[in-house]
């Protein structure tokens, strides 16, 4: 399984990578904004999962979701917003744009596992402990 982590915070990317690796996802690619993310996805192979922050310079998370949903060959990609943005209206906008799930920062590793399971990605959480998702 291939996962794309898009967040302008290096610390947050690293934390999400760490959680994914513990769940057995070893093919993790990272982007610091939407533009870099689109280039990475175009470079293939298409990720099965994208974890997308909202507030980023250059191209924000919402615009990235719109871009990712334009291409038919990327439709199978599960997209989860991982963000501090929790205004009701904006959450609805992200879901309407094509995001499949929504995780609000801060979060715990267990919350990631449960959300991925809602996306049909039942990953083995055996190694995931009390990791705190941080508040960035």
């Amino acid at each position, binding site marked *: 399984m291939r996962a794309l982590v898009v967040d302008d915070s290096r610390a947050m990317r690293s934390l999400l990578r760490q959680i994914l690796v513990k769940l057995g996802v070893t093919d993790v690619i990272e982007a610091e904004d939407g533009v870099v993310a689109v280039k990475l996805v175009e470079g293939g192979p298409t990720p099965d999962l994208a974890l997308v922050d909202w507030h980023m310079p250059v191209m924000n998370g919402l615009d990235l979701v719109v871009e990712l949903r334009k291409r038919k060959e990327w439709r199978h990609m599960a997209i989860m917003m991982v963000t501090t943005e*929790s*205004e*009701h209206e904006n*959450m*609805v906008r992200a*879901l309407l744009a094509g*995001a*499949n*799930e*929504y*995780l*609000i*920062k*801060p*979060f*715990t590793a*267990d*919350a990631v596992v*449960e*959300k991925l*399971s*809602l996306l049909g990605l039942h990953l083995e959480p055996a190694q995931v402990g*009390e990791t705190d998702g941080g508040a960035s």
Partner: protein
Amino acid sequence: MTTATAEDFEYLQRFIFERSAIVLAEEKQYLVDTRLLPVVQRTGVDSVADLVKALRRGDRSIETAVVDAMTTNETSWFRDAAPFEALRRLIFPDVIAQNAMRRRMSIWSAACSTGQELYSIAMLLDAEFPELGSWKLDLLGTDLSTSVVERARSGRFSSLEINRGLPASHLVKYFTREGAHFVIADQLRSKTKFELFNLARPWPPMADHDIILMRNVLIYFDIPTKQRVLEAARAHLRPGGFLMLGTAETTRGLVDGFTAVPAGGTTVYRREEA
């Protein structure tokens, strides 16, 4: 049952940090009650304050029990897929058919903690059983601790709590944001009632239920208490009604009058006809 004082909380905060490196924030004081009252019952002391006294004395078995209880994570929404599958596929359709004339359904979450189980049921009924729109739904949640019951009643959840297994579609449909919290919609909250209740003590008179959820509670009780609680649960279920227990719990070998029914990857217990 007395609850923890601020001083008890400070002691526990330090104790948990030394043992598990987990920092309990001040606003998590309610967790002390949620998590420790079952330990109080199981270990036979009188209160959380006595539990703290035992910790100060260095009672090893109580230390382990407290660390275990305090380091468990937040309650999840739709916790464990199997029981909710059982409700969706077998139990709700069955009760709807049984009660078609009365147009009423009564559900009791008997160890409701901060309310996620009962609110999850309310969301499931609203989202997937629209035919119940005109029914009278009695959704009761009870717990041991006053502070926990009050939190359940408030329907307010932090983002840490809201993240735990709640589908985004339900988050936007059934919650509004108020500052740092998410509040459950009035349309659902108005169908629920939360009350204080100690399962291990004699039960006060109450109406019968179609479904009782009593998950991961019996594990805290000794065998005579388990038997007493299960007998009382049977007496408060309508014939043909369902009891749902935790994965590690069963009625088998403890009480008669239930039929084990496999459903949704778990086992539920149906009250036999009188």
